[in-house]
């Protein structure tokens, strides 16, 4: 009997909007699957693409970057940079044979508790459909620990 695949997702959330949105989801007791591990950054603009690749390399099945809505960035425009990096990274991931849906760039405001929960839920469902990250699978000479 195989256990149902439970994806591990790493989330980078900006302190001002998305982290607060995740807080609001909790405060409002909106339930969503416990697959996300949140890393708080001051701004989504802080997220270096290397962190995202590192997360995949470390065995994450998905990575979420959530920042303020366009125009709302506490630091004026960090979210735009995160968005652009995300777009380029998705293209790159696809070239690496990693489904781009495993990387999600979202705008979640401090008042969007429900949206945050919905984003996580949807992402978990998407990744469940995709299955475990191809990076976890053993390949020639390169063993990646499997969860």
């Amino acid at each position, binding site marked *: 009997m195989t256990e149902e695949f439970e994806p591990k997702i790493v989330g980078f959330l900006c302190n001002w909007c998305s982290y607060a949105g*995740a807080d609001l989801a909790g405060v409002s007791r909106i339930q969503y699957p416990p697959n996300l591990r949140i*890393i708080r950054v001051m701004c989504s603009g802080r997220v270096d693409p290397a962190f995202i690749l590192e997360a995949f390399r470390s065995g994450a099945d998905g990575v979420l970057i959530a920042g303020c809505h366009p125009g709302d960035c506490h630091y004026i425009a960090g979210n735009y940079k995160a968005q652009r990096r995300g777009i380029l990274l998705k293209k790159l991931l696809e070239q690496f044979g990693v489904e781009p849906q495993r990387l999600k760039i979202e705008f979640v405001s401090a008042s969007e508790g429900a949206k945050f929960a919905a984003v996580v839920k949807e992402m978990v469902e998407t990744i469940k459909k995709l299955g475990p990250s191809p990076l976890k699978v053993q390949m020639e000479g390169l063993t990646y620990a499997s969860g």
Partner: protein
Amino acid sequence: MEQSQKETSRIGVFICHCGINIGGVVNVPEVVEYAKTLPDVVYAEDNLYTCSSDGLNKIKESIAKYNLNRVIVASCTPRTHEPLFRATCEEAGVNKYLFEMANIREHCSWAHMHEHERATEKAKDIVRMAVAKARLLQPQTEPEIDVTPSALVIGGGISGIIAALCLADQRFKVSLVEKEPELGGMLRNLHKLYPTMQDASEGLEHFIQAVKSNKSIDVFTSTVVKEVKGFIGNFKVTLQKGNSETANLDIGTIVVATGATIFEPVGMYGYGEHENVITQLQLERLLKEGQLKKPEKVVMIQCVGSREEKGRTYCSRVCCMTALKNAMFIRELYPETDVYLLYRDLQTYGQHYEHHHREAQEKGIRFIKYAQEKPPEVVAGKNGKLEVNVYHALLGEQIKIESDLVVLSTPLIQHKDAKELSKMLKVPLGSDGFFFEAHVKLRPIEFATDGIYVCGTAHSPKDTAESVSQAFGVASRAAIPMALKRLRTEAITALVDEDLCSGCRICEAVCEYSAIEMQEKEGKQTSKVLEALCKGCGTCGASCPTGAITMRHFTDNQLVAQVRAAPQVAKEVTKHD
């Protein structure tokens, strides 16, 4: 790597039940036991309420007892409780940046209330990630800078004058710079001021005298700002008078109050072609000087060169009221004169202006709404008169008005030299040409760059009352750093390793706060963070292609450690696995 050379981490973990808010879902004792197994964790315990005074005392006691140098509280969101726990750590002699919080309430127990086991697993992961980061935390200090208690106000119109006076009344030194030979700005051209209809010159004269007699204010007329260097509290400003004379000032804060000028509608509605087509500003002058000869019929046209489809798309805010005011003055002066006001939408907002609108209606001003797509036409008529053809949008008919004076209401526009100033101060201009504030809603009178503020029509078209309101506001914002004398700046800032920086200037381009400056050393450029301006967003750190920028308290190492700890599947990934 970096931490191994320093002291070894001794981490204490305090896990909160939050009554039953966490404890009712997450198996807290199990998480405590798990925490104890994590590297560098020397102590772990659970509390009913870690934030209660009882819980806080426990933290302090444990720091002493176990010689802890890193503290983790796993409870609720750091957004509300972090300051409290940080303060507790400081009280016990642990630098507040050596505290880390694990959010197992909002992000865990409350969001997974029916999945006790998985919530417990998640709580462990969250604690593990916190430990991974805490091991690498470094103490931080919040650097202080001195602030010169002296303000530079650029622009000697009513905004600049009021800002200067209010700052001087708060006992700061003020240098007021005006490029014209006289103070007063736009108000010098105006006749009466709505809504009180008092003489513009009367009000202005009072304030100019106040400025001149104020010992704290140095007035520089016929003078421009030539160079600005430095940052908040420590600006070095060079002024230039005429071609030769210059002055060097040490300045703490800068107020931009350069005002606006008026659009010259050359080629529109016969302006420049017929001499009896004038602008509203020219009419003001005629009224002010008592030079207006009795016209039989006056036609005023609104939105001339503003609210355009493309170009000057903005509404200039002051034109409707100015036209109403002048229309009423003409009627007062010459009761027999008919005044037609051709408008698109009347901007009679706020508590006073609608009243003036009604007054104008009662005084017999004729309002004709025209549509943007069918603008009026002004053509030469008989006997040197003008003929204005307008489609009355509310009557649905074309009207022909014979007029001997056409007055065009044109918008306020930015001065030509504003671009130069914006470059000098490194503050942006918006697409409308006006200075662009830090945040449209909540930081309306300051720039993203600390220590530089904006008020009056330099920011956007506005009337005297509104400019004055902003000028007082600016006098408060600019006073804050000067009143403090010393400024604590962010501890969480970027730091450039000069040995690695290759001067590519990418960080400079991405910084919204102009907090990165290039410096030259031995013929090579490297970037430097002006910590006083840095807000710590970390965008530069993420963008730096050489890894020369470290983000304090959110270092690459710390974040990568969290990333690696998150999926719990990665062993230390090395080159060989």
